[in-house]
């Protein structure tokens, strides 16, 4: 060999197709940067899936989300129900033998999905979070009655839970008027500032 070795490197694209679909190798790094977690640490033991309380309702198992993110299977991950169904109960991270914070990974993947405008397969869940945060941004605190009402308008499920809601009001548990705390304007500014930083790609934002 010796002198016969070429100085130039090979020129193939290195493209990987899984199930016929092109993968996005940079996706893993994006998730790792946002979540601060090392996806390659996962050896796919499935302990997260085994203990996940909502796995029965998920389309991708938690361990599959990690694996697919690692493999750059962007569409499967971003379009999955699982990333929205994760309730952040932290069972997986507590027991993970590799100390991977999977709820952080789920959070990050959700953020990427939102940013890229991917259609959410669990619109009610997304509407809940959006409405929740809108309410907090507007009022500094959450006004639960307003949350329920706004959510019903968004999701069109007008009559679900109405008896429970009425009972709540009757029991004095759903205040009709929101509270107006002093820090209201400050909270609004925090939302705006975080939104600005996320737009600029601040490492901590997003």
């Amino acid at each position: 060999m010796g002198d016969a070795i070429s100085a130039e490197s090979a020129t193939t694209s290195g493209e990987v197709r899984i199930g016929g679909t092109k993968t996005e190798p940079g996706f893993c790094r994006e998730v790792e940067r946002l979540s601060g977690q090392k996806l390659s640490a996962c050896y796919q033991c499935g302990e997260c899936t085994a203990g996940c309380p909502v796995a029965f309702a998920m389309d991708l198992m938690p361990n599959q989300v990690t694996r697919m993110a690692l493999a750059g299977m962007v569409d499967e991950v971003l379009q999955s129900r699982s990333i929205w169904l994760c309730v952040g109960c932290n069972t997986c991270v507590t027991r993970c033998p590799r100390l991977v914070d999977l709820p952080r990974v789920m959070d990050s993947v959700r953020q990427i999905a939102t940013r890229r405008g991917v259609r959410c397969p669990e619109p009610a869940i997304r509407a809940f979070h959006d409405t929740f945060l809108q309410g907090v941004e507007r009022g500094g605190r959450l006004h639960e009655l307003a949350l329920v009402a706004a959510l019903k308008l968004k999701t069109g499920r007008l009559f679900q839970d109405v008896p429970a809601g009425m009972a709540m009001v009757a029991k004095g548990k759903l205040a009709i008027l929101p509270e107006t705390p002093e820090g209201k304007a400050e909270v609004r500014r925090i939302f705006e500032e975080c939104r600005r930083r996320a737009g600029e790609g601040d490492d901590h934002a997003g």
Partner: protein
Amino acid sequence: MQDNRAYAYYPGCSLHATAKEYDLSARAVCAALGVELREVPGWNCCGASSAHGRDHLLSTTLAARNLALVEEMGLEEVAVPCAACFNRLAVAGHELREDASLADAVRNVLERPLQGSAKARALLDVVARDVGTERIRDAVRRPLEGLKVACYYGCLLVRPPRALETDERVEDPQSLDELVRAMGGEPVEWPHKTECCGAALSLTRTDVVRRLSADILKMARDCGADCIVCACPLCMTNLDMRQGEALKAAGERFRIPVLYFTELMALAMGIPDAERWLKMHFVDASAVARRESAAAQSTEAQQ
């Protein structure tokens, strides 16, 4: 153990609404035990389970503002009754202490001095550990003799243990059990102390919550509990308000009362308003006040 110590008090949004009885009972019990709670002036929503899914910096800053307010009050610890709020404030506090660059970013957004010295404490932990079972035993007027209690901690009081800096055994926490024992009740041995109830999916994927809540309720019944005691408004909503539909979907007819631990304490300590708060629940909890057995209640439910 410290005597008559003052804590900042962060009620969180739910305790001003759906979990009003938690707020009222927490204040009453603490007052009776000589624990001074000073509500954080101008507190804001901690971001709960929504903010961290949108933006890590936002969720940390929302929590951090409250911690900064606690620092401004000149207090070291903030007692948080809601498990979800406690989790957010405690995790954010831990991250601010561990990650200097995150702390800088938060300070820049917050535009408030933030040392990171304020520590979030679960109200349960304050009561069980700081006040201590000895003083609670002394404060009991009507012991919970014969009452079998399923102590339900849920997810967010104990997990993730590394960030919460708690000394609870994460898979089998004990503080609530100790508390019940101090009041003369009998905590049942059961495996679902920290199983998840479905939390914020309550309004959106009610089907998931029904199934998870039914699992928890059935296990409490199977293990012989007369009632369930919790420390979280979300858990209460899912186990109490959703109990009827959850058990119906599971083909079960029994009912089991669910109480905030502070309500149970108020009953045991003979605080006069205690029975009135229980009326705010969906599942009739008056039997617990009357110390009736589980068997009597289930026949009642069937009638």
